[in-house]
């Protein structure tokens, strides 16, 4: 698929730069456009870990890879006058093998504007949770090579199937926008070993409020949903094994194993709260976001944040960014049960029980994000519809905090990512 993306991207970029500019008819109700990214990322400092932009990706399988960032998007818009509109956008990018076709549809909706600044949509839309949540695939619209992984890497709450209401209004010099979305989500994610899992979200509600004035944008968002993670029979088998072990008549054993069991999260309520701001003044751009994710009885709960500063000089923008994700709970401390279980189960049985406990701890920690990243980069707008980006990130993953990586071994790690890519758009 990546080869297809690369070939298609080359054709699109060439097409965009050589096509004589034409004046499309205003009466045309249809518009076809697209975007893409061609790029490679090189990772060093870690052995065998697979880098991914987010948990919906399988992760890299080699030190230098085009898989995480290369993508090609195609979009069809329809306008039925000033009140009706519709659109569909598909994005070809690397996902876990076996991901169904609907996962590649970012949004597809029918919209109606009863009044000019009011819009209702039905279908698949982008949730408005983050500053760059709905444009994360459109590299040309991003200041960086990719959205900060520490902040955006865990996010599966992107496309919502349901209804969406948006209202805009002006107060003095400021523009306000409120949006509410309700619906469900189904998306493929990659497990720590790169295998395919499925995340289902129900009773999902998202509200956001955005204010813009001059160069300052501020945003607040909130979401609540019930989610279920389907990654095969593994968690259920682990729970069953822990239950059998906990039934042994040893004081405190059931409580110890109960803590391990509840961290094998496969579903429950998920609450998100986020704040974001972007400020542009002269050649300077400042972007910052912070969020809190609350998932009871899991190690997913975390606080996230990043700050980015950019300076534009001619066609080149130089930027730096720093990000951090910090879990709400510490890593699971594996209890030493071998000694206390030996009299009951014998040495071999106690060793097997200890292995089970250890595996349950690792499995629980596999959903734990604990890392920080600092990076610098530049963006060169070498054409009106294309930009070259270079970015170097230095990451620092704490012990048992590598949920953002595939095939991680739970150890602490430090390393460097070097990214070179070209973003482009056409037909806009």
């Amino acid at each position, binding site marked *: 698929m990546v080869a297809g993306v690369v070939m298609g991207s080359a054709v699109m970029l060439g097409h965009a730069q050589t096509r004589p500019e034409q004046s499309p008819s205003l009466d045309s109700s249809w518009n076809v456009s697209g975007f893409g990214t061609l790029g490679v990322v090189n990772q060093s400092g870690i052995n065998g870990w697979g880098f991914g932009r987010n948990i919906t990706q399988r992760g890299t399988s080699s*030190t230098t890879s085009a898989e995480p960032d290369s993508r090609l998007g195609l979009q069809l818009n329809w306008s039925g006058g000033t009140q009706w509109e519709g659109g569909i*956008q598909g994005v070809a990018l690397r996902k876990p093998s076996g991901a169904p076709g609907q996962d590649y549809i970012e*949004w597809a909706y029918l919209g109606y504007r009863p009044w000019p600044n009011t819009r209702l949509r039905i279908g698949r839309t982008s949730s408005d949770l983050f500053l760059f949540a709905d444009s994360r695939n*459109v590299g040309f619209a991003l200041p960086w090579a990719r959205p900060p992984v520490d902040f955006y890497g865990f996010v599966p709450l992107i496309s919502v199937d349901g209804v969406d209401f948006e209202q805009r209004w002006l107060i003095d010099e400021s523009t306000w926008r409120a949006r509410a979305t309700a619906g469900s989500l189904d998306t493929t994610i990659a497990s720590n070993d790169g295998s395919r899992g499925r995340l289902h979200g129900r009773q999902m509600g998202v509200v956001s409020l955005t204010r813009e004035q001059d160069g300052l944008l501020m945003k607040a968002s909130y979401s609540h949903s019930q989610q279920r993670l389907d990654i095969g029979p593994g968690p259920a088998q682990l729970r069953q094994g822990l239950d059998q072990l906990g039934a042994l008549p040893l004081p405190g054993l059931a409580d110890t194993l109960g803590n391990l069991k509840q961290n094998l999260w496969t579903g429950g309520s998920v609450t998100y709260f986020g704040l974001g701001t972007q400020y542009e003044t002269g050649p300077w751009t400042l972007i910052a976001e912070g969020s809190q994710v609350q998932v009871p009885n899991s190690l997913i709960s975390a606080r996230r944040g990043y700050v980015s500063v950019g300076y534009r000089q001619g066609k080149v923008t130089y930027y730096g960014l720093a990000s951090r994700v910090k879990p709400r709970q510490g890593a699971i401390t594996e209890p030493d049960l071998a000694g206390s279980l030996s009299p009951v189960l014998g040495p071999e049985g106690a060793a097997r029980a200890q292995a089970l406990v250890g595996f349950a701890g690792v499995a629980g920690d596999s959903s734990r994000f604990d890392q920080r990243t600092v990076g610098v980069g530049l963006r060169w707008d070498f054409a*009106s519809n294309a*930009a070259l980006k270079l970015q170097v990130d230095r990451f620092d993953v704490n012990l048992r905090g590598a949920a953002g990586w595939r095939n991680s071994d739970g150890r602490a790690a430090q390393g460097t990512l070097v990214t070179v890519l070209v973003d482009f758009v056409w037909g*806009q």
Partner: protein
Amino acid sequence: MTVLSFKSLRPVAVLLLAFSLSPSTTLAAETVFVVVSAQSQVRALTQKDVLALYTGRSRVLPGGEVATPIDQLRDSTARADFYQMLTGMDIARINSYWARLHFTGQVQPPPPVGDDAAVIQRLRADPNAIGYVMQEPTGAAVRVVLRLP
């Protein structure tokens, strides 16, 4: 193992820096005229009004009428000059800004119709349209509602 190093990237960085410092060869227009149809009820607009329309923040004029902003050709100097005077941002930043709105399904950018003559022709046919021209229009078909800068 293939490893990209800072050293290997140095020539590219030098090239980019040189490019960023090269002087622009395009001469900017002295004045851009924001125009509406003579049939429109609008007599004058502020820069804030036009800014809201051409950045997708509003779809209506101060009087409440629906507005249909139109652009000149995407790579034209007229478009670059207009957005530079209106927003203070160069055309690459504007294109990136609109890419974000367009490809997230939020707002569609103003459709390009051509040059000054095409804009005026469009305004004759659409009382809700609003556009901009480089030459001060003559005749009674359109009305200038704002001069930039």
